[in-house]
């Protein structure tokens, strides 16, 4: 049995769905944050898969997608730093990391 592009995409979609479900259902903001990272990595996985299965005339995979993955990893690292800093600041202000308690942005 050989793995096809569809298999990778299926895994990627599952990871994305799990991450999205976590973002929607979990209450702890840190878990939500982790789930966000999961969604990013699902995207990365599909990009790498596309790269691998998109072979050009010279027999090499298309590396553009892999470069994009590196960018995403870099940006995600920066994002984690900023996000965690916001969470720390939020905790200091509200003494909680539960999203239900953070609902003052409404009319």
């Amino acid at each position, binding site marked *: 049995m050989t793995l096809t592009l569809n298999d990778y995409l299926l895994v990627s979609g599952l990871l994305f769905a799990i991450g999205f479900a976590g973002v*929607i259902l979990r209450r702890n903001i840190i878990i939500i944050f982790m789930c966000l990272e999961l969604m990013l990595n699902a995207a990365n996985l599909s990009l790498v898969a596309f790269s691998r299965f998109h072979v050009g005339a010279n027999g090499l995979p298309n590396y553009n997608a892999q470069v994009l993955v590196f960018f995403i990893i870099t940006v995600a690292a920066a994002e984690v730093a900023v996000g965690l800093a916001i969470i720390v600041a939020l905790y200091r202000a509200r003494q909680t990391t539960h999203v239900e308690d953070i609902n003052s942005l409404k009319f």
Partner: protein
Amino acid sequence: MNSHFPWFILGAPLVSAFVILLFTRGAHKLSASISVGAVFFAFVASVFAFLGPDTHDAISWIDLGDSLRLNIGVTVDALSKVMLLVVTGVGLLVHLYSTVYMGRDESEGRFFGCLSLFMFSMLGIVLADNFAMMFIFWELVGVSSYLLIGHWFTRDSAAEAAKKAFLTNRIGDFGFMIGILMLWSLTGAVGFAELREKLPLATYTPTFMTVAALAIFCGAVGKSAQVPLHVWLPDAMEGPTPVSALIHAATMVAAGVYMLARVFFVMQLSATALTVIAVIGVVTALLAALMATQQDDIKRILAYSTLSQLGYMVMAVGLAAPGAAMFHLFTHAFFKALLFLGAGAVIHALHHEQDIWRMGGLSARMKWTFRTFAVGTLALTGCPFLAGFFSKDAILLAAYQKSLPIFALALLTAFLTAFYMTRLVVVAFLGKARTHEAEHGHDGPAAMTGPLLILGVLSVVAGWSFIADRALGPEIVHGLHEMHGAGGAGVVMTLATLAFLVGTAGGWLLYTGAARDPILIPVFRDKFYFDELYAALIAGTQDVLGSATSWFDKWILDGVIVRGLSGATWGLGFVLRFLQWGNLQAYAFLFGVGVVGLMYLLVFRP
């Protein structure tokens, strides 16, 4: 003498007005001298122009290729020659008279400045060689008339009268402008000579020409105070009496008739327009004469008489006899100016008393004023062999030949004219003095009686053929002779003389020795309620317009546009903010649903 010469006639009063109004207004006697000097110069120049050949001179003012060429030009021909003489001649006498009449006025300088401005504007109308220039001077005449009627502007009635005159004239002038534009759109020309060439070649529907002719006639209706725009002229008597004599009797109000004679070649293209003009003329003549029979103010009687005589002239134009109209304009200018100046002398002597029932017995003490006034009256009423007799006869003859109903009404007007003028003379000058002032009336100084005497002589002789023929020019005279040859001259002359005799006898018998007016006819006394009708009409229209505008403002502008727009925005926001319930994960969920929805639409739908 070359063709540039007429510019001096136009320039002298302009320079005078300029100098007086800007520099010497405070120096009363100097201003008066400048003004009299300017009009004297214009008079002498006009005499030379009259004796000289016909000329035409123009400078280009606006040139936009073939679509529009505007000139400022001066034309001296038979028509403008006689007007030049009348305007500057009567103008000179009135200026001289004014030096006495306005001698003690505290703004004499301004008066003479405005008088010069008027002379400039009036001469501009007379000399104009195209419609655009005539219209400009037409408006200038309106302005100077406004300024002079409102000379005593601290008096409310004078300020109101000035406003009324200006606004009423504007209504007519608007029509005039439309008429000019219609002719211009048809031919692309505004010059009289050009129009005369191009109109016969142009194609137009009869309705178009009727409307154009009547629109131009509107200007004359306003300026010459014809029904229904006549209401301003009696009120204009609030101005100083010399102004009434010069502007509101002899010259400016005659400008309408002059203009109609000048552009008669347009008028005659539409028979309907001519009929309308004739009817309006005769209606004005009759209504004004009826109103005059019941007025008590000496100047108002004369004002209604002016209206009536202007009606005659307009009627003559409508009857395709502009020559007769110009003839009557020519003679009327002299005797009506004479009557007004005579009335002014009486008012001056009686310390501004204008009610004829508070006069009486003036003939003994104001000999020269009385004699000249009587001559003017006889000339106006059509006493045989005086000026008015001949010119009125010409108009009546035209009416007799064209339309018997109009002739009958015109004859009735002639009778009424004799009646009310006799009433005026008998009540004001004969019998016993009714007030203390009237017992001490006296003739004015030479500068006042002099013009009266000159105008008195002219009122007698202006109609005699060796003067009138010379003044009116061969073309008009030829037309008048032709009309006389066409029959009916004997009948008309007999009937006109009869109307004069009956009217004079009636007035004489009824009013000799009367202490009060023996007849009272409110509808004549109240001027057929024209003023009340207009007041109600204007007030009513304003009310309707005002409430409609207010409704629109309240419900459409404020309601729908301002409040409606802000209300809709607020309401939409109110509904939408229920979506913002502050739950982060719900937002994320909706966001996800949205993305899925979009992807479904983009990828799977089409």
